[in-house]
């Protein structure tokens, strides 16, 4: 059993939890994930590691309550325990040797973008962060990001906070203004990662995206999480979840992720970026 040490509501739908998992805490690196199962009847759900503290022996997860398992988890409290918590899974993001990086987060994806920004910043890179949200009331991690970047740009779709518009608009304007990034990391809804990759492609800026396909075991034994990258089948749980954003077949991923839609509400339907194209 894995004890919930801390619980904090970041906005109405997004929850932060610190889970006692000393073995995972000792090894976790930016870009890796865990799989949890609430109870005996539960399903296995992957979540990216948002932070970890080897000394305290805790792993932080930040998630949006979108389906049965995340809703159940969000209803648990400090002191409660969940049944299974396994990790660190996946290949850590390679973050060495970059000079100037732009980290782009979308919605709850900012929670996953944060550890990468922090690791890059601690490695001495110059880090710009573009954190995009639908609206002011769901902005998360503003202070945390400020501590680990050179510039933080917050965008909201409706202009209620920061700059109005999508993260792609902001990224385009930063590139136009002469910022020379040697890496862009994009983490958020699939359409957002797709369009960020489209922005950087003409400039040949290396772009990493963190994919979120459906997973079961997370150890490479089922291929449920397979994605097509550069025309080849890859298992996101072992080969990823980070991939070259210019090589990913996003449309296929989006279709595969909606396979169990009748069973589980999926955020593809409600994503406003699907129908909007970057200008």
């Amino acid at each position, binding site marked *: 059993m894995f004890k919930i040490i801390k619980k904090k509501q970041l906005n109405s739908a997004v929850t932060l939890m610190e889970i006692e998992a000393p*073995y*995972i805490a000792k*090894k976790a690196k930016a870009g890796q994930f865990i799989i949890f*199962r609430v109870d005996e*009847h*539960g*399903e*296995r759900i992957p979540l990216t590691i948002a932070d970890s503290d080897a000394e305290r022996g805790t792993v932080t997860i930040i998630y949006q309550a979108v389906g*049965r*398992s995340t809703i159940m988890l969000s209803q648990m409290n400090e002191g409660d325990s969940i*049944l*299974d*918590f*396994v*990790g*660190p*899974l996946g290949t850590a993001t390679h973050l060495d040797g970059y000079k100037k990086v732009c980290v782009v987060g979308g919605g709850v994806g900012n929670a996953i973008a944060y550890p990468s920004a922090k690791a890059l910043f601690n490695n001495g890179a110059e880090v710009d962060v573009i954190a995009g949200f639908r609206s002011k009331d769901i902005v998360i991690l503003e202070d945390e990001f400020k501590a680990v970047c050179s510039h933080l740009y917050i965008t909201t779709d409706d202009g209620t906070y920061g700059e109005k518009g999508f993260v792609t608009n902001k990224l385009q304007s930063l590139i136009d203004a002469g910022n020379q990034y040697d890496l862009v990391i994009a983490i958020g809804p699939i359409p957002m990662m797709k369009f960020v990759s489209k922005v950087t492609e003409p400039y040949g800026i290396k772009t990493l995206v963190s994919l979120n396909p459906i997973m*079961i*075991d997370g*150890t*490479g*034994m*089922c*291929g*449920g999480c*397979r*994605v*097509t990258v550069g025309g080849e*089948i890859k298992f996101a749980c*072992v080969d990823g979840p980070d991939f070259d954003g210019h090589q990913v*077949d996003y*449309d*296929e991923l989006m*279709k*595969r992720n*909606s*396979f*169990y839609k009748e*069973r*589980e509400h999926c955020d593809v339907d409600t994503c406003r970026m699907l129908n909007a194209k970057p200008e």
Partner: protein
Amino acid sequence: MKNMSQYKVEMPVQDPLVRNKNFEEVALGYTPEMAMEEAARCLGCKHRPCVEGCPVSVQIPDFIARVAEGDFAGAYRVIRQTNALPAVCGRVCPQESQCESRCVRGIKGEPVAIGRLERFVADWARENLTGEEVPPVFNGHRVAVIGAGPAGLTCAGELAKLGYGVTIFEALHTPGGVLSYGIPEFRLPKYIVAKEVEGLQKLGVEIRTNMVIGRVESVDELMDEGYEAVFIGSGAGLPSFMGIEGEALSGVYSANEYLTRVNLMKAYREGYDTPIRRSRSTIVVGGGNVAMDAARCAKRLGAEVTVVYRRSEEEMPARREEIHHAKEEKVQFRLLCNPVRILDDGNGNVRAVECIEMQLGEPDASGRRRPEPVAGSEFLIEADTVIMALGTSPNPLLHRTTPGITVNRRGCIIANEATMATEKAGVYAGGDAVTGAATVILAMGAGKTAAASIHEYLSQK
């Protein structure tokens, strides 16, 4: 009095058209009377050819003689001396190619039903014997076992009996490996696996689930922590795909994914959260036991099921009994037939599979006649689900993270055949991690051999 009938005492089974709608066990097992009657068919040969056919050397005539006398507890003690998981083996071993293939009674008529008798004894013991085992005295040495499948469980059990402090590290949330996620409930009920695992824990074996060795800890770190030897029994869980068009469509599963959802996550049962496609029409590609398991699960989930296999029935690697059971349950077979591509319904879901007819040509390197496509024979089978059961290979995670371990070109860990020692001192490996996908009992045999080698290694240290 010997029973000189040429035929095995029949074992009662669920009616095929009833059982293909439930996940309850197909074979119902012998009654004590049936078991004693069948046991009386054993001639108690002096040269014991059956024992040589058993990878873990169960003393078959000895245990059967006790069954014939009605001494089931005595029979169980004989089996347990050499076999840690008899209720499992009695159910899933291919006895026809192992112990029973050597039985003298099989020369004229059917061999003695060794598997059914082993199963009977183990089931009887589970229901009638309690709390017999006392953990042996700890000998001061600790051994780590990676993977709680048949190889790891057997190795752990053998070492525990010798007094070693054994910890099994398992990546999934439930021990058992393929016994838990792969083989369906209707062939091997999960409470039986759980009970056999419990038996090991009573011997003092510690099982730590949710531990992915290679990620959370390396083999070297385990050794630094005081484990003096390590056994790698991580299996061959990496599924193969065909590489054809449409394989990424929604509704295409690897057999591993399909079976994991059904068996480990219980997606077929009300009240469990893991979803699975409730298919109208399912195609299973492949001809092994895994293909039969997947086909029979899909049938039980309400689908029309067709097994597509590129060779003929004679070459199918699945056990005859499993093919027979699948046919009785109305699984269809399209033999000498191979998928060419999978068609999209326009929304990224499977609509149909385009297949081509095959014919058998010259024998290939494996000695089997090579299937070749018949030009122009393409045709469509409508389906909304495709399950690829094309075999598996070892997961690369462990050897990639363990310096000193070497693998062959198929990704199998290289270990000495006689001792299971890898090229890294103190590290042993066995089961599918070494051989590639094989059988439960071979993995158990490897686990047993490795335990003996580890004992020898640590005794000399």
